[in-house]
Each structure stands twice: as C-alpha cells, then as structure tokens.
C-alpha cells in the first residue's frame, strides 16, 4: 500500500509545551496548525509572576 504522508501537524493547545512543539516543527520544515481556545497564546505560564531559578519574568 502506498500511503501519502502529509507534511503538516496539528498542535492542540498554545501553552508553553504547545508553543515549543510548534516552533520546533515549523523550524524543521513542517506546516503547523496551532489551536488555542483563548484569545492569546502563552497558557498558564504567562500568568506566573516570576519563574525559578532565574527569577526571570515569566513573560
């Protein structure tokens, strides 16, 4: 059976994990659909004040 492989990926969820997957795939030569329910991406991490250990702003 010859099967046709589609060079695109659907990423469900635009939090830190979804964004990282999408970036990696897009930079590796795949077309990416990033699906996010809320009006902006970033997920829970964007609500955090600072993150350990760099105490960098989570933004």
């Amino acid at each position, binding site marked *: 059976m010859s099967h046709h*492989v*589609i*060079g*695109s*990926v*659907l*990423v*469900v*969820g635009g*939090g*830190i*994990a*979804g*964004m*990282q*997957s*999408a*970036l*990696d*795939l*897009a*930079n*590796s*030569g*795949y*077309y990416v*659909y990033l699906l996010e329910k*809320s*009006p*902006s*991406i*970033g*997920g*829970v*991490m*964007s*609500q*955090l*004040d*600072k*993150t*350990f*250990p*760099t*105490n*960098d702003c989570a*933004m």
Partner: protein
Amino acid sequence: MGLAKRKAIYVQYAQAVPLKYTIDKANCIYFIKKGKCGACKKICPTGAVDFDQKEEIVTLNVGSVILSPGFAPFDPTVFDAYQYAKLPNVVTAMEFERVLSASGPTMGHLVRASDQKEPKKIAWFQCVGSRDMNKCDNSYCSSVCCMYAIKEAVIAKEHAGKDLDCAVFFMDMRTHGKEFERFYTTAKDKHGIRFIRCRVHTINPVAGTDDLEIRYITETGELKTEIFDQIVLSVGLQIKPEIAELAKRLGIELTEGRFCKTETFEPVATSREGIFVCGVFQGPKDIPQAVIDASAAASAAGEILSEARNTLIKHKEAVTETNITGERPRIGVFVCRCGINIAGVVDVPKVAEYAKTLPYVEFTTDNLYSCSQDTQENMAQIIKKERLNRVVVAACTPKTHEPLFQETLTNAGLNKYLFEMANIRNQDSWVHKSNPELATEKAIDLVRMAVAKVALMEPLKEAELEVNQTAVVIGGGIAGMSAAKSLAKQGYETHIIEKGKCLGGQALNIFRTPKGEDIAEKLSGLVDEITKDQKIHVHLDSAITSVDGFVGNFKSTISSNGKNDVLEHGIAIIATGASAFKPSEYNYGKDPRIMTSLELDKKFMEKDPSLKKIDSAVFIQCVGSREPDRLYCSRVCCTHSIDNAIELKKINPDMNVYVLYRDIRTYGEREYLYKKARGMGIIFIRYSVDNKPEVKPEGEKIMVGVTDHILGRRLSLEADIVTLATAVIPNRDEKLANFFKVPVNDDGFFIERHAKLGPSEFATDGVFLCGLAHYPKPIDESIAQGMAAASRAVTLLARKKIHTSGTIAETMPAVCSSCGVCVSICPYSAPSFIEETARFFPGKAQINPVLCKGCGLCVASCRSGAIRLKGFDNDQIFAQIYELSKAV
C-alpha cells in the same frame, strides 16, 4: 480570576501574543441586549470591531497531531474546611501569583483582598487537590507545588521586606528539580521561611477581623494555634473534564489520574498511532520538563513525517538589495502614535515636524500603528518612492519590534542594518505620563540621536554558512541512543561516541521501570535497532580528543583503540551520563549485605536465590544526596527504592521491609507506588540529616538504629540486607566542556541554555544536551530529553544554511598592536592572530565573524582602539552623545 474588575473588551494581559483586544461575549451589552450599545464599533479608528463574526468549522488534513491541552488549577471550593469561597483572604497560589505580578491587579503590591492591608503573616498549605483521596480523587502528586510555594514565599518576602512571616505547611518537601534543593535550603536558612510538616485540617475566621486561625500539631506532637493574615492554598494540577472527554473521542487511553497514558520507552506517544502528547496532559510536571516533552513530541512527529518534510511550507521571495554605496544619506523618520499609547502623552506631529529639520532627513510622517500590516506595506512603498537609504522608527522597544521593521527594510530592498529605533514609548510616554511637554522634548532628543546614529550606518553583511548535515552524539546511554535514533529516523547521518565497550549506559544496571517494564528486554531492542540502522555509526571504546570549528562546521578528532579519526559534523549532542555514588558511610564495602540500589537490582536481574531467604530488609534514602557538599536531590531514588521494596515484599510477603527517608519524593503518578507500598505493609520511617541512621553488622544480622520522629524514640531494626539509595554523580568532563565551550555547575552537571526554556541545549550554538549529564532523571525523562535534543538539533540541521549576525566586531589591522588582549578575553574564541606567513598584516588580530556574538568585550578592552563593533561604531556612539549634549 475575579481579583479585579475587567471591562467587556480586554487584552488578556499586557504582553499577550497577539496583543489584540477581544470582546467578552458573556458580559458585552451588545450581545446581552441584542444590538444595543455598539459604542466600540463607532469609536474604533481602524474599524476592527465586527459583531458579526461567526464560528467557522475548518477541516484540516494533517500528518500528525500533538496534544498539549494543558491543565486547570485545582478548584478548592469543594473543601469545606478551607472555606475558600467564603473567606476572601484564603486564595489559591495562582491568585497569589497575580498579586505578586507587577502587571497584576495590585501592580505587584502585596496586599490582602479583604481590606487591602499589607499582610504580616502568610501561610501556604501544600497538597491541596493532590495526594488526596478523601476530598477529591487526585491521589497523584502534582510535582510543582512545593517549589512554587517556596518561590512565592521568597518573592513575597522580597516585596514586603524581611519582617513578613512566611510558613509553609507540607507533608513531604518535594524539591526534586535542578537547583531546587539549593533554593529550598536558602529559603529556610537565609530567608527564614518556616517549614512545618503538618497537614492543617481547618481554617477558622477570627471573629471581628479578617484574620484566619489555624490549629496544627508540631513534629514534637504539640498542638499549636496560630493566626495568619492570609492563607495561600497550593493547589494541584488536574486535567479538565472536557479534555478527558476529547481524549475519549480520539480513542486515547488515560491513566488513573486522567492523564494521557504513555510507556516509559515511548514517553510522548499516546495509545493511538500518530498522535503525540506533551505538557501536563502527559503527567504533572514543571516548565522545563514540559519544554523537553514538547520538543520530544515534535521529534516524534518529525520521525513519522520526515519524507514529507518541506512539502507544505512556504518560502518568502527574496527582494534584491539595493546598493547604496557612495550615496548621500536619505533618512526617513516614522513616528508612531501607537494608538494613544504614545500620542496620548507625546505631541507626535510636533516630533515628526521637528525631525524634518534634521540633517539628511528627506521624509517624515507619523503612523497610527507602525507595526500593523498595512502600515508596514505602506512604509516599504515610501522607502522605494522616496529612495530612502536610512530609516528611523520612533516607536516602542527594539527588543520586540526591531526584527519586524528590519523585515520591512528588507522587503523594500534595503539592507536591514540601515535602521535605528528610538524608544519613545516604553522609555518615554509610559514613564512620563504626567509630564507631556517634557516627554515630547525627550522624544525629540531621542529622535535626534537616532538620526545622528543612523546617518553613519553602513550596510552590514551577514555571513552565510552551510550546515554540515552530520550529527555526533557523545555517550551511548539511553538518552544518547534515543537522540541518535530520532536523528537517524529524520534522515541524518549520526555518529555515537561511547567510551565503554557496549551501548546502554546506566540502564544496563537497572532491573525494571516503576511502570513494571523489563528494562533489559526493552534496552536490547533499542540497541538492536541502533546497530541495524544504516544511518547510525557506533564508535565504541572511543573518546573525543579535540574539537575545532563551530556551529554547522565542527571538526572533531575521535580516538578509538589508539586510532585517530577526524569527523566533520554540524551539531553535537552531549549525553555523557552519570554514575552511582559509592558511599563511605553506613559501613558500605565492609559487608556484602550492605549494598547500593544498583547492586540490589543486579540480584533481581540474576534472580539471586538468597533474596528468598531474607526476613528483614532496610532501605536508606538520600545517601550522598541533599547534603551540604552535594546539595541536590537525585530524583530517581525514592521511586526506585519503593519499587524494589515492593519487589522484595512480592518475593516474600512476610518480609519486614523498612524505608528510612527524609522526604518521599514520588512525584507525579509515581505517588501510586508509594501508596501501594504502604498498603503492602512496608514501613516508612523518617530521619533527619543531623540524626542519621546507624548501620552495624552484628553477627547474623545487621543492626540499623534510627530515631523515629513520630514515636520520638530510638528504634533498632534487625536487617538481613541494607540497601543504600546513593546519589547520582555526573561523569564530570571538564575537557569535553572545554572543547565545546559549555559550562558545568558546581555539582558537575552541564548548564543548559536556559533553566526553563532551553533545557536541552547549550548557549553555544549547535551543541545540545540530554540525559543524566543534565540532571538526574528516570528513563522516560532521559528518553524524552534525548528526543528533545534531537528535535532542537533538527531545527538547525533543517535550515541547511545559517546566517550570522551583522552586528559583530571587526579589527582594523593597521591600528592593531598584536597585544593579544582580545584573544585572551573573548568568551567565544572569535579573535585570533593572522598567520605570520600571511601576505597582509601578519601577526595582527582578526575576528572570525561566525564565532563573534557582538558582545563588545574585545572592543572595550582594546587599548589601541583597533576593534570596532559594527552597528555600534565609536563614531556612531559619539554622534549620539554629541546630539544628546545639545539637549542639556
């Protein structure tokens, strides 16, 4: 989150991407009262409000799906005893994050909700909605709450000052991440945060005040009553019901905790082929682990789609660059209003008008939003029409927007470095809101400086480099092999350099995974696959003896059995692993019955018959870990010992099994094992680091003395075997670190690019990291990181060509005095001396544009003034300073 009022049209948060307003349909007058109001539509200057948008159903055909639907913080309303919904000063940790945040409802000012009073005493309650089968059915550990509670307590003290009293009430302190244990220790010792091992039952409001009273039992058994101003509930992570529902629709199996079910050796594969998972849906985890999984999932998708790579992506058409050499500067100045962000304070037309009077300025205008698509296109048209050869945009910060405007220049056929931004928003209109006149003056000064600088700008070239498509993986353990496998499946020639005689690394010494998979069997399958793969070349008994070159073009010498080979490769993955600590305490080495965890595993693997004869077994945790000179948690040992304890109990159910521990750290769904062990009658006894157990062989038995904290007395246990859960010690490799110019921390682990966002790569381009060399971790996490490192590497390999920055240092050999300070001081080894035999400027310094990062260290240290940083040249900086001095 209900902490503050929000309008019906809002931006989710100040730095949201995309930074666009959205209408809250449930609260908008237009939607509630069919067609009334609509003021926003009338007032919007760009006509962006459209009430008639409809939901659209789009069907997508894709090759693979990655699920990263995230989690919801546990809702503690169900806990009557904590009265979360009733008491305003009982908040969740997420709400507390917002209070601490500078962009939050209180602008980062620490006040409690009921009366806006600054709290003097705050308590954190751990495990709210985690490790709990009574009030909710989340019996897993959420993995992240201990660490975030400590972080919040430390930051709260930073905000409110030393006098703030912070207390964390916990069951086990689980700081098992990289550098976490050190943070916990400083929080305790330096910041004076109180840690109290107790699960508090009830919160009572103090009548007549907004304060909260709690009662708890101290470790010595004393009942105490304490009043706090505010209580933070460290809520756990859980999967939303609609996600579980979605999984069901997709035919994906879930675990007991409603997380996506995965296998140890395929940590991001769901039970359905082609669908991968990452983030908290895969299991409760913190940010770096989510980032690792995310890259691993991308890699897994890439493995199955590699033949269709580059089939659907679109390439931008390149615009030919206009040659402006010798032209008189023709500067265009675009002043941005940023809606009312700038124009509300700064007199934008006045600034634009002023810019017209500056030398070489041929065109000025103001834009409503310079960053919007149509303005961008318009700007490109103007650049072409007015034959501009330098551009200044006075707007927001170059940190976020410079690349965008540079792209506009490129699209207009102009070298992207013929550009300068004046930050009249973040550094002007935002901070001088109350003083519009001075703000306008400052904007004028900033524009004048930018114009002076850009006039001296020259087009800069970016070096283009071919990326060698071969990969090298150093270390043939589980992480290294996973990385190699993933790279090979995505079509890249890969070399594994292993110093030992066979592949497998530490996994060879481990009996089984906590999920019950047989490691030896899985491992030999993997080794087999690696050896058979045509694209993978395994070099055993080998080591790297030198490395030349840089990202895309490394040249490494590999010595195997006395033979030296030179290998050219584009990227390198460091997976040099770690090994088990051999202790000198607890009489280890003096009696064969006192062994390390791996030695016990060996007995299991060999099916040692002596195991059946054991009546009593003792496990001692944290041997060599979490001690002053090795201040990190080895992460794997709690789960490993508990699993081995269970195995012993299975071999002989009458056996007495004791686990002596400091904190049990069975994070995530490993918690179930801990619960199971307790159910099987395995006895857990806690000890403290300043009162360690004593182990003495006495005749037939080994006597283990330990102080039981609950009973408050010294116990004496008779054991047939004692297993020491010893620390994971990295295979410290300073030489390799030096070859690739990558850093190593005090403990000997490699330091990644960014603790949160770049866990599987180094700051040095083209060098990646995975496995135990990064930090102790179990097999599933090692495999995920191996795949993640491969994924990060592929993003580089796939580009085939890379461009370096144009903003780099350059020497002027005629002025160079060859003193060598730049060669000595550069952290990237970019400067070197021109060969003595060269025709021009022998012995003078030169800078390799590929290695240079443009940090400017050499420029500052050159006594002869022979180095210039392109784009920040001396005369440009001086020009700016002269222009600035006109303002005074």
